[in-house]
């Protein structure tokens, strides 16, 4: 089965620095999504990048996708203490049509922003 696996597992940086997290997966995808989870809360969708896209921006977030390497990266620029959370990449299955596709999540990167 396909998997998203993030690295590093944990990342601690100073406020104002940039944070980069990476994700690798195993099989063909329609799209790749990044989610954020604060402790004890649900996942919050951050950004979706389709398999035919290479880069996407949303505010302080920049996502890249390299389908030849089956990898993606999430860059958070000018980090803030409020960015402290776990970040997950998620991939969907290639589907033949119809229905709803479940997401496969990685183990996540726990990001700590030191004030």
């Amino acid at each position, binding site marked *: 089965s396909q998997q998203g696996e993030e690295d590093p597992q944990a990342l601690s940086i100073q406020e104002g620095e940039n944070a980069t997290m990476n994700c690798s997966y195993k099989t063909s995808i*329609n*799209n790749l*999504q990044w*989610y954020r989870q604060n402790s*004890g*809360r*649900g*996942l*919050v*969708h951050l950004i*979706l990048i389709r398999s035919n896209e290479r880069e996407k921006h949303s505010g302080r977030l920049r996502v890249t996708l390299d389908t030849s390497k089956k990898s993606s990266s999430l860059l958070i620029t000018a980090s803030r203490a409020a960015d402290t959370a776990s970040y*997950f990449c*998620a991939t*969907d*299955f290639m*589907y033949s049509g*119809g*229905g*709803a*596709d*479940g*997401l*496969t*999540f*990685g*183990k*996540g990167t726990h990001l700590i922003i030191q004030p």
Partner: protein
Amino acid sequence: EPEVTQTPSHQVTQMGQEVILRCVPISNHLYFYWYRQILGQKVEFLVSFYNNEISEKSEIFDDQFSVERPDGSNFTLKIRSTKLEDSAMYFCASSTGQGGAQHFGDGTRLSIL
């Protein structure tokens, strides 16, 4: 902003008992999902639901599990005879379209004693 709501936030149940977890997806969404997250582990897909039927399910979603959309707003997950290993956070999610962003509730923490 509309959100997915889940009840209860915490459910404690004796092993072997039936439990029903409830979700109200975002009102104009058409696709519904259940995931679980065992403490310290990754979020795992259980089942997806579209057009009043199961669309896809994982190997975790065995005969002990069932889902239902009893009316136009609720989406439920039933575990018939709970086991200790069913203890986890259960998340409901919904989306407007296939392959799009999924909106998650804050989850139900299920504790099996």
